[in-house]
């Protein structure tokens, strides 16, 4: 139980893929124009990550060391293709708004990083859990980014009118690419500040080294 808690904390806070490891910046910056986009992208990545970690962990003793990266990519792209087809069939709206970024999950560095760093060295159950928690960290980060950008840039959250009814002028800048960089930068700064404060500077530095 303790390990589970530790892994959860690692995935969501200490080793958050976005705020701490800075992995997978391309979908992070591109799709978070709205909260629902970020959330949808996050859920998709959780599925892909859990499945790919599961398969790679199963195969870890058969894959020769020399061709492991190529093998991981084959597994990951297989999973992504399956999930893309599922989304196309059952969530056509999400497919429309995420578009090209769903197939691009194949080259998302988080997936490969977790396969290489975790799934290839741990048993099946642990690998699935790691995939889920890392994916959860990713989802939380993307949703947070999406909420902030949508709130400032459109005055809504998940499409619901929050600020517009008070006569708010949307700041278009925040749904543009430049707004993504600034929002992400501020968020990373804030998260780092909070981590430093709660863990103490030493522990945070240790985490940096481990990365």
């Amino acid at each position, binding site marked *: 139980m303790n390990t589970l808690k530790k892994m959860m904390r690692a995935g969501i806070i200490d080793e958050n893929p976005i705020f701490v490891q800075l992995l997978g910046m391309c979908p992070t910056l591109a799709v978070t124009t709205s909260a629902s986009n970020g959330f949808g992208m996050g859920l998709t990545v959780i599925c892909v990550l859990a499945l790919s970690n599961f398969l790679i962990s199963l195969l870890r003793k058969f894959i020769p060391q020399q061709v492991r990266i190529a093998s991981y990519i084959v597994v990951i792209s297989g999973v992504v293709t399956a999930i893309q087809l599922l989304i196309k069939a059952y969530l056509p709206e999400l497919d429309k708004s995420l578009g090209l970024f769903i197939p691009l999950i194949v080259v998302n560095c988080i997936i490969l990083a977790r396969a290489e760093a975790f799934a290839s060295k741990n048993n099946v159950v642990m690998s699935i859990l790691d995939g889920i928690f890392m994916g959860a960290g990713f989802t939380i980060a993307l949703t947070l980014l999406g909420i902030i950008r949508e709130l400032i840039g459109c005055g809504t959250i998940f499409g619901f009118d929050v600020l517009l009814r008070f006569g708010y002028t949307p*700041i*278009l*800048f925040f749904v543009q690419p430049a707004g993504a960089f*600034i929002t992400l930068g*501020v968020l990373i*700064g804030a998260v780092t500040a909070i981590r430093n404060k709660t863990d103490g500077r030493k522990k945070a530095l240790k985490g940096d080294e481990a990365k």
Partner: protein
Amino acid sequence: MDFLKVTSSPHMRHEDTTRVIMLDVILALVPALIWAVYIFGTRALVLTIVSAASAVIFEFLYRLIMKKSATVGDFSAVVTGILLAYTLPVSVPMWMPVLGSFFAIVIVKQLYGGIGKNVVNPALAARVFLFLAFPSEMATYTSPFTKLPAFANVGADVVASATPLSNLKAGTAPDEKLIDLFIGNSAGCIGEVSILLVLAGGLYLLVRKTITWHIPVSFILTSAVIAYIFPGTGMDAVQYVLSELCTGGLVMAAVFMATDYTTSPVSSKGRIIYGIGCGLITMLIRKCGSYDEGVSFAILVMNCLAWYIDKFTRPRVFGGAKKNEK
């Protein structure tokens, strides 16, 4: 026995503190403001004061909340606020300079560590932010001597005027005579219209040795040369060159924005390269880009390259190894 006291260098001191320099810049900016009040009305003054005051308040609050030493006394926030207001059209709502000041002071300046540590010019970055965030408000210019309310928001019924710059962009000669453009009798941003008074402020800064000639001269000359090589239609080359120079924020930016200490190179050679780069990008955007004005983008890009120019033009240390010796 005071005169026998042994101290370490420096032994000669100059009274140039940040505060003195910033006060000089503020003084140099005043003529342009007086002219703005004359042609755009008190609203220009109110906007400038709101902008400067909010910049100071944001700087004070940030340093207070983050428990850092107070730095409002160096007046750099005042200069940022004034410069930001100078790049806005006079018809913008009052909250806009406040938002811009927040962006300039908190995000661009203080998050990077405060005065002397920011990568890009805060006022210009805030101007670009407002420009991208509110494209329509930031592109509504009023003709000189239009009566605008001093405090209330300007309604949508305000008559938008074509700026000389948008005329040039469209490929036609500006309606105004060259002398009007030079004096500032045209539509434009609060502090940028009067080339004459901006130049006067620049001259004061030059005499006070607050700025050197390298950046403004290389910036303006490069723009002029490019305008001469690729003239517009409907006018002769010299008239075109002068119109390009006397419209928009080119002179204002060359004198006050590009010469910001923190974000420009240190050496003379580096400053000339920097000025040429600013001029090139400005004219590239004016000629080929989709925006009328490229000055702010040009300076922001060159700001980011300033450290590299410094590295590239680093002078040889006296007595140190020669360049090609290892």
